[in-house]
């Protein structure tokens, strides 16, 4: 698989994880144990975005 295709594939999977985190946050509304851990997981997600999102975003069509 070409690097750009691989990057896009990972970036799309990251989007799905971000959606799942938002859903988790909604389900745990008002529960600090959920909200705080979601924030923390968003930190980990940010690192993966730093690796893969900008390359995907600058892909020449």
């Amino acid at each position: 698989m070409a690097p750009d295709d691989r990057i896009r594939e990972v970036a799309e999977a990251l989007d799905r994880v971000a959606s799942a985190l938002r859903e988790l946050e909604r389900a745990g509304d008002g529960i600090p144990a959920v909200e705080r851990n979601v924030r923390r997981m968003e930190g980990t997600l940010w690192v993966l975005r730093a690796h893969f999102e900008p390359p995907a975003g600058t892909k020449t069509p």
Partner: protein
Amino acid sequence: MPYPETEYWNPITETLDPDRLREIQLAKFRRVLAWVYERSPMYRRKYDEAGLRPEDVRTWDDLAKVPLVTKDDYRCQGTDPFPYGDTLCVPLEEVTEYHQTSGTTGTPVYQPDTWADWEWFSELWATILWAQGYRPTDRVFFPFGYHVFIAFWTAHYGAERLGCEVVPGGVLGTRERLLKMRELKTNAFMATPTYVLGMAETARKDLGADPREWGIRRITCAGEPGASVPTTKKRMQDAWGCPVYDHVGATEVGAWGFECRHQPGGQHVIESMFLVELLELDSDRPVTRPGVPGRIVITAFDRRAQPCVRFDTKDVSMWAADGCECGRTWRILEGGVHGRVDHITKVKGVLFSPVTVEEVVRSFEELDGEFEIFVEKRGDLDHITLKVELPDGLAPPDRDGLLKELASRLRWKTQLNFDIQPQPYGSLPRYQVKARRFHDLRKEGGA
């Protein structure tokens, strides 16, 4: 095998086509520029004064329009939101880590980090350590006093992130740290070059042990240029019987460069996460040709609470002409960081870098490697003194011959005549963090 065995932590970004990498860097630069302009009053003020709006930066040629930031720009700290003031880019409640610079060049800089920043910083270290051959099966010792200085904090978490078993050396003394390393059979550790040598010395003299027999497979250095100074690197590798790798980073910047396990004679820049520019020593014109020294200016693309954009580190390096057999496309800074602009000074009209003295002193096996340099004015003339420790029991004519050879090599390397003052063994300061061996008393008001 429980983990993928590849050369790279991220095989995609570490081997990207250079043109593609530049395209990504420009996109990331524009993003962080907008981020700091929108969120940090310090950056907004600076850019407004320069008549710059983030959207004015579209191409690489536009980069020069963006004002440089120095430590002086952080002097606005100490106000609300306390203590970061106008440098903070996120709500204070998102800050989860506090650290600060050591303040050796002025008032300390306060560095906030969010959870995302801390993850990012440890990710940088994971990138570095993987490239240096660390793997999840390693047991890594940290002989480091965990405190307000960032130092090896993020290396600890980077190693843990990678899957290593980390052993915090904390407040233990050197002897106790060594005993713990031996007891636990740790196979790697991280420290400043000065401390790496000091630990080997303590192992030999206080414990009567040969650290080469302890099974240490690799050492990673930070904090001083020593691990990129060939004679200092050799001294450390000989003392511990394993490769010693360098890394570069700064509190305000992050861990931005590293020597990979192939030891290419320089440090790869983590170009997927940073933009490193070299500017001429006495102007802001870019240095693009290999082999020409320049000031290192850095932008951290992905830090959020207090990212640096075109931060003038005042450190000096040069681009390498060649790549590395590791296959990374990230550029290499030859010889790592050569020293600081404010340490590279004219003595008797000759450009002088203290790192050259380190290289010479540590080329003598007879010397223990400790030294201090003093430059002062005597009348109208510059005077340069080198204090160096001699081994116990060294008597004439060996002593005189050694000093004569030292003076000769120093003159050859620096074009300067040194006033060499031999000191008893163990009399010069030992450092666990950044060593301060160069004293320009002309600047410090001492003469």
